[in-house]
């Protein structure tokens, strides 16, 4: 509860800072400070839970924070902190409204908080809206760039449409269940009918759109490519992870009892997402666009956690969200240092800037899921979660492994360019000691997760 209020209030503080502060550096500093505070508030809340405080439903059952939600929030604020430290300089460069951009990022965190703790479909809806509207704005924040405006408009129109579908689904479920409170849902013989199942599928389509699952993924490459790169980094990581948590909680906890009705559809969606994301990523010329498609492919793996409908799925999503987010933010941070976003822009980076190239290598290896990096255990956990449910999903797991092998191809293409091709990479921005330190920190975090993933799970109760 406290982190929710804190994130909203901090967003307002950033807004007011935008009125009085002129120096752009100050915004980054203030945002860093507030994010440290927010992480502190989250940890404080986590301590209460760990000390045996029973989580109770707040506001007539609107919200319910368990250890999973609060731990997830703590991780997300931590990642947001890392994001600001790595990309702050680039955010300052986007436009004139730096303070507002940070304010919107705080509102996104507020929405992520709601999504991790919702206990009522209305809060789910509001959380998704609070997370979406800042994204539409951030996507279009580079007003001098036509592609950015196009991305914003496209995202807004499609997003509004998918919100409509989500509302339709919620309305149908309300009609079947006579309540918005997900803990009061009980699916029985007489109410698992076209109405409730229709509602479930509408919600699946809408949430699938928001996490860019195929075939609802068509907006993703254009939006991620068109949006200013620092904001693509947050859209592809924190936002996606938060919506996945909502997805997982809704389908595992609430609709888990009738999983036989929806797993087939969701497994087809997963297979399609893996296929489309990986195959199209192979053909991309620009690394930024490749990362957009790779984020579709990674969403396919995260969908496994939803398909699993068990506790391992929850563990898997935590590890996956962290490993994927840190690696992607790091990769985008490296990308933003370069002038040329194509593969050729990376030529010779290994010789010229060994540290940039080395950290990029770790991020890419993690995204590909190579052992000793966080990405390996992330994939391992989500796939075993599905295997625990029996052999019915075996075909999908084998397919996913095949697709992971394909993904190695396009990640390694960047590595090849960095180490085995000659060239003079041009930097768009000076690499400072701070950048080196935080990139190294992110890479170290990935290695630590890759060696001992249990540290991320120690905070979860049951």
């Amino acid at each position, binding site marked *: 509860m406290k982190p929710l209020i804190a994130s909203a209030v901090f967003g307002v503080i950033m807004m007011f800072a935008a009125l009085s502060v002129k120096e752009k550096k100050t915004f980054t500093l203030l945002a860093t400070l507030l994010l440290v505070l927010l992480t502190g508030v989250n940890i404080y809340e986590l301590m209460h839970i760990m000390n045996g405080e029973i989580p109770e439903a707040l*506001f007539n059952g609107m919200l319910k924070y368990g250890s999973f939600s609060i731990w997830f929030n703590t991780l997300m604020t931590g990642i947001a902190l890392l994001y600001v430290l790595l990309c702050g300089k680039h955010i300052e460069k986007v436009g004139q409204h730096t303070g507002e951009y940070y304010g919107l990022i705080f509102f996104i965190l507020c929405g992520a908080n709601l999504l991790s703790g919702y206990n009522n479909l209305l809060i789910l809806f509001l959380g998704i809206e609070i997370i979406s509207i800042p994204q539409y704005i951030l996507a279009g924040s580079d007003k001098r760039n036509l592609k950015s405006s196009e991305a914003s408009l496209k995202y807004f129109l499609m997003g509004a449409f998918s919100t409509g579908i989500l509302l339709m689904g919620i309305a149908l479920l309300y009609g079947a269940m006579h309540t918005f409170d997900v803990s009061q849902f009980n699916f029985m013989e007489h109410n698992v009918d076209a*109405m409730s199942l229709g509602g479930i599928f509408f919600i699946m389509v809408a949430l699938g759109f928001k996490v860019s699952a195929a075939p609802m993924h068509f907006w993703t490459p254009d939006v991620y490519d068109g949006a200013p790169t620092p904001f693509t980094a947050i859209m592809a990581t924190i936002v996606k992870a938060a919506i996945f948590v909502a997805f997982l909680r809704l389908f595992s906890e609430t609709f888990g009892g009738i999983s036989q009705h929806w797993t087939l559809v969701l497994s087809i969606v997963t297979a399609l997402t893996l296929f489309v994301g990986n195959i199209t990523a192979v053909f991309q010329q620009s690394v930024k666009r490749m990362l957009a498609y790779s984020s579709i492919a990674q969403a396919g793996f995260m969908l496994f956690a939803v398909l699993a409908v068990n506790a391992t799925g929850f563990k898997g999503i935590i590890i996956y969200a962290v490993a994927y987010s840190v690696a992607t933010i790091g990769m985008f941070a490296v990308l933003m240092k370069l002038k040329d976003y194509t593969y050729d822009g990376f030529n010779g980076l290994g010789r010229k800037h060994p540290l940039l190239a080395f950290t990029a290598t770790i991020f890419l290896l993690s995204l590909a899921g190579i052992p000793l990096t966080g990405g390996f255990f992330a994939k391992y956990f989500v796939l075993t979660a599905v295997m625990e449910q029996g052999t019915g999903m075996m075909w999908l797991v084998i397919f996913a492994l095949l697709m992971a092998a394909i993904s190695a191809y396009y990640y390694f293409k960047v590595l090849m360019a960095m180490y085995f091709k000659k060239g003079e990479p041009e930097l768009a921005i000076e690499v400072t000691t701070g950048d080196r330190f935080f990139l190294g920190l992110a890479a170290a975090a990935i290695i630590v997760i890759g060696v001992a993933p249990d540290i991320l799970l120690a905070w979860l109760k049951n």
Partner: protein
Amino acid sequence: MSLHEILFYFLSLMALVCALGVILSRNPVKSVLFLIATFFAISGHYVLMNAQFLAVVNIIVYAGAIMVLFLFVIMLMNLNADAEPQKSRLVQFAAVLSGGALFLVMIAALKTAGIHAEESKIDSSGEIGLIHNLGQVLFKEYVLPFEVSSVLFLSAMIGAMVIGKKEEARTEA
């Protein structure tokens, strides 16, 4: 047929015809006018269900304010050229197929809903939509969504500012 039923069918017909008009008319301004008529028909339904407050809000916010926004957007665009791209046959066919499938699902959903319609019957005798009861529910049971929506409005305000405000001449670097 009672007056209530006559009005219900009349309003439903009006809503359906106007909604079709929105998507079928080629002129966007006409589409907006049809949309306003649709909103009025829906407001009529609210009144039939004894939810006068919702009816008025629907007219003030949707038919009033939001439609003005729509008209502004239309005027922002260049409408002189008839720039609607021609869709290929395959896409049209796929759209008809998926739309039809959706329609079937909705019909099935509404059909099964008919069984227990009795328990949740909303008609002019119900008092859920009255402003007094609405306030009680909104500020007691649903007080959190109410508060949270203010965050949503704030981000919308920032959005309007960031996107809509002219960039000042770049004085500082």
